[in-house]
């Protein structure tokens, strides 16, 4: 982006979620809460998050990702051909269970806590990934804003579950082609909607660069 100043300050994405927000998210996922009621809860959280950033004096504002299951799993809400699965759900499809369980231990997380946007069909963008988040953010802050999106390496690595995805895509590369296409379209839409900054998150890039074995899977 074009710098307006020196030492520009910003945040990298998510904000601690309140008990109310987590409750609403779970209820919405179980269809016990309407989208409108869910959005009402999220809107309040996002307003508070933005207010705190402005109070602290940050130069570029984020929405705190309150509407998202996680920084990448929310893709399942927006993209056809996906299914949000808990890691416990996925145990049935994992080839090397010992390695999988070791990974969970390493991450120090209960299997039920992580949800993965598994690819189970041909991917297509059902609705914008973040353009609506940008529009809402614009209504509550005059400051430059940043939208965060999961990067293509992270998505390809996490969405690929061989037993399910392999029926639709020949290999990781074919899946990646569609993921990149979706992210590219979203980036262009965000630009056209006047987004100041788009950040792609790639926390597993290390693993992809350093491990030749493409089948090793990482969930963040």
């Amino acid at each position, binding site marked *: 982006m074009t*710098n307006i100043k020196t*030492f520009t300050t910003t945040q*990298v994405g998510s904000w601690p979620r309140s008990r109310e927000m987590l409750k609403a998210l779970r209820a919405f996922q179980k269809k016990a809460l309407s989208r409108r009621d869910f959005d009402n809860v999220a809107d309040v959280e996002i307003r508070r998050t933005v207010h705190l950033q402005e109070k*602290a004096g940050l*130069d570029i504002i984020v929405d705190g990702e309150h509407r998202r299951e996680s920084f990448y799993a929310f893709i399942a809400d927006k993209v056809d051909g996906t299914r949000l699965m808990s890691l416990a759900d996925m145990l049935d499809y994992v080839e090397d269970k010992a390695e999988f369980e070791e990974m969970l231990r390493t991450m120090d997380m209960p299997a039920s*806590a992580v949800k993965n946007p598994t690819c189970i069909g041909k991917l297509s963008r059902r609705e914008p990934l973040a353009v609506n988040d940008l529009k809402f953010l614009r209504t509550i802050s005059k400051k430059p804003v940043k939208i*965060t999106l999961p990067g293509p390496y992270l998505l390809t690595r996490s969405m690929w579950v061989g037993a399910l995805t392999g029926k639709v895509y020949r290999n990781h590369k074919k899946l990646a082609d569609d993921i990149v296409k979706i992210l590219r379209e979203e980036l262009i839409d965000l630009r056209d909607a006047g987004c100041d900054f788009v950040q792609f998150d790639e*926390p597993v890039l290390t693993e992809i660069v350093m491990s030749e074995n493409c089948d090793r899977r990482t969930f963040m």
Partner: protein
Amino acid sequence: MLLQGDYAKLIPALKPMRIDQFVLEYATPRAGDIEVVGSVLSDRELGLGVVNPRTDTVETPEEIVLKATRALDFYRPEQLFLNTDCGFGCFASRSVNVEDVAFQKLCSIVAAAETLRKRFG
């Protein structure tokens, strides 16, 4: 697999990327010395991670100023962004940090930026 040591092994992957800014963790000691990235990627901006969202200890503005000053060996002030290492609430059912600590950490970043602007423009 967590990267052990600095970003050296990632440089061949990062260098050809057609992006404006690399946003990298530097609040954790694991990130290593800024020179590894600064000496080869300073043709682009750097989002310098200066606070760690996974800890409860609030970094002081002085610590952040020190870290950013070191980065100025490789970057111009307008190329240098100050940010958190990652988000404050990485997973749906487990927030990494409580809001009050998160807010204090943002305040430290802003205070550091003000000092740096006075010192370096």
